[in-house]
């Protein structure tokens, strides 16, 4: 992985640190709602999807059945299927890396990969982010599960705003400026360069339309549908916006 540079490490570290704190709060909440420390840790290791973990524990704590908890968690995690089709290239063709890489597929690692310009950087960003988050999340959960009650509410320090803001920052390059392609391409003549820029601008405008529709669809359906479904429905935006 020769394409890991300092800014990337710094950005990933910020997300991983935040994820560790949220993991600690999950550990504390899970133990407070009746899970043993080892079950909370097993869940984090094997499921490794914060949203679905909070959801499943919440459903059971609220009196729901384990079946309902599993269904809610799976609905929320179904988005990984289209994610996987998008980032298939970074997982490589070899089975060991593919099996391991699939487990590291979370919103943040996909978003980090998407924000990179070259295939090599996509790969580096995905693995670095996925790996760092896996470690931070699981250590956080264990600490929270053991330390329990001492931890405060992560909302008090605004962590619930940190995640959407970070995700938005990663999305911004796809929605605005064309991705710069510097490394592999030879310096083309002016006309070719202008054409490429125009193409990139058209792509960014299309991405903005899709993003706008996606946000509207998800927000408009959230009050009426189970969690996870509105996000999946946002895929319709791709069809709507391309018409």
């Amino acid at each position: 992985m020769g394409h890991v540079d300092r800014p990337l490490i710094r950005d990933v570290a910020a997300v991983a640190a935040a994820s560790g704190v949220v993991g600690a709060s999950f550990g504390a909440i899970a133990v407070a709602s009746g899970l043993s420390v080892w079950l909370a840790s097993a869940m984090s290791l094997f499921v490794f999807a914060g949203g679905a973990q909070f959801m499943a524990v919440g459903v059971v704590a609220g009196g729901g059945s384990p079946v309902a908890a599993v269904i809610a968690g799976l609905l929320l995690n179904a988005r990984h299927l289209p994610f996987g089709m998008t980032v298939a290239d970074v997982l490589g063709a070899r089975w060991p890396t593919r099996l391991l890489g699939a487990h590291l597929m979370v919103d943040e690692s996909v978003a980090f990969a998407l924000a990179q310009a070259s295939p090599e950087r996509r790969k580096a960003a995905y693995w670095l982010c996925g790996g760092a988050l896996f470690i931070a999340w699981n250590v956080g959960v264990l600490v929270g599960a053991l330390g329990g009650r001492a931890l405060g509410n992560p909302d008090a320090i605004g962590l619930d705003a940190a995640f959407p803001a970070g995700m938005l920052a990663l999305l911004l390059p796809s929605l605005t400026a064309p991705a710069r392609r510097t490394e592999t391409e030879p310096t083309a003549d002016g006309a070719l360069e202008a054409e490429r820029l125009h193409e990139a601008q058209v792509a960014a405008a299309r991405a903005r339309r899709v993003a706008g529709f996606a946000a509207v669809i998800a927000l408009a359906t959230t009050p009426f549908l189970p969690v996870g479904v509105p996000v999946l429905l946002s895929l319709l935006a791709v069809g709507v916006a391309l018409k």
Partner: protein
Amino acid sequence: MTLLPILVLAAGTYAFRLAGPLLSQRMTLSARVQGLLTLCAIALLTALVATATLTAAGGFAGWARPAGVLAGALMAWRKLPFVVVVVGAAAVTALLRMAGIG
């Protein structure tokens, strides 16, 4: 909760995660389809950002969180470092909550 539902959730989640790479390996994807898949990821991530910013438990999340995310968005738009965006968004939300704004 016991181990069984946790393992079922884990297996199902992993199946979703692995299905994408396997499906895209079966088919040779044209550049156009690749582009559409990227748009799919953008749609999903934007929907996540929108719902995580504005909603909590099916209702409105209150003003502090969207205000923090908006501050973060402005910082990202001004090309401030990623760390500043993340910490800044959290700080704005935390300060608003400290001031009693929900």
